[in-house]
């Protein structure tokens, strides 16, 4: 999280399963890289691909 002018930015990682296409959003953890597969899908054991990493800013 970064703080600038009373604005708080939280970084999220968006993952999508290569097999069943299920997607999930979680908070960014160190080592997350777009197009890496850091974990397996809980539903089908397929690979979860990181499709985007982005920040959400709250005032």
């Amino acid at each position, binding site marked *: 999280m*970064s703080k*600038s002018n009373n604005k708080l*930015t939280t*970084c999220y990682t968006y993952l999508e399963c290569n097999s069943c296409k299920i997607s999930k959003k979680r908070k*960014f953890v160190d080592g997350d*890289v*777009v*197009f890496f597969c850091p974990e397996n899908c809980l539903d089908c054991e397929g690979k979860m691909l990181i499709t*985007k990493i*982005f920040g959400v800013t709250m005032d």
Partner: protein
Amino acid sequence: MDFNFDEFLTWVGEDFDTLMMLIWILPVIIFVFYGQRIQLLISSNEIKKDIEKLDEYTASTKKDFLNYVTNNLTSKTDPSKRLDSFFDYFTIMPVDMDPNGIISKINHLIRSREDFIRLQINGMFSNLSSVELSKIQNLLEIVTTLQLFYKHTRHLYLTAKKQKNFPLILPLQMMIPFIMEEAVALKDAMPAIKKGQPIGDSIGPMIVGQMMLKTTKESAAFETVWSKTTFEDRELFLLKAEGPNATVGRPGDGFEKIISSKKPDLVIMIDAALKLEGEDSASIAKGFGAAIGGIGTERFKIEDIATKNNIPILALVVKQSIHEAITLMTDDIANKANTVRDELYQMIRENTVSGQTILVIGVGNTIGVSQ
């Protein structure tokens, strides 16, 4: 002679206009002789506040950078002193009285500087990965730029004050909002760079990186990769900086290598572009010419190769502010990746025919984006 207040009031009552004239003429006289100094005082006070902010940004980013290095990297000796000397490094641009051949001179100078810094950092720390090395280079660049901003604005401000020269402070007064905008963006870029998160400028490499998945990647130039794929009976050459390093790679050199094996019929460059005031963030624009920023050497090389080989260059850009371009990628920008890819395919369909070859270059810093 004794002052009689009643007599004075009687006189005022008789000649009120004279008194009013005196009251009004006094400020006019003051402004005629001291107007510039008053203006200088007001302007310089505002500039002084901004300079104090620049000093604060420089000090905080410097501290942040040194803390990051101490806590995350292993060094035999204390790196603070050596890194401190890097903050004051300067670059003397080549003489431009005879501009002939200046691009190659600038290119040589910039590359030498990069190589020197890379070598020095590599020697300072043990077991430094290429990703970590590129992050350190980026962080160092942020601190150095902020320090340069601070020193230059302070120099102009102090010179104007010392010489009591109002016109000298006018250019600074005009430029300071732009300098501050960039300074705030640089300061806010630190957390994303430290954590290796994609920034707004990474949108080009992100789009091309996705197209590169499941293809065989080859090195095209230093910190630059390329691969081949197909689309509707056309051959696509994909080129981007090597992720997830915090680098823009060398697309000019990459293009040179690709063209030595096969000449593409069309080049499409995808990049982030600074939006104009009033334009929406994450809006997409199409155009002609090489979409690539930086000092100009890479653009020159790409334009030169394309001109010599008669290859048209098209551009696809995602508009964003300077702050968005160098800080953590926003959701709006990230969400545009699929739309830009669709636009790219449409562009290919409209401008080429079956059997032709297209080179797609994803321009920008590929931090946190693999391929």
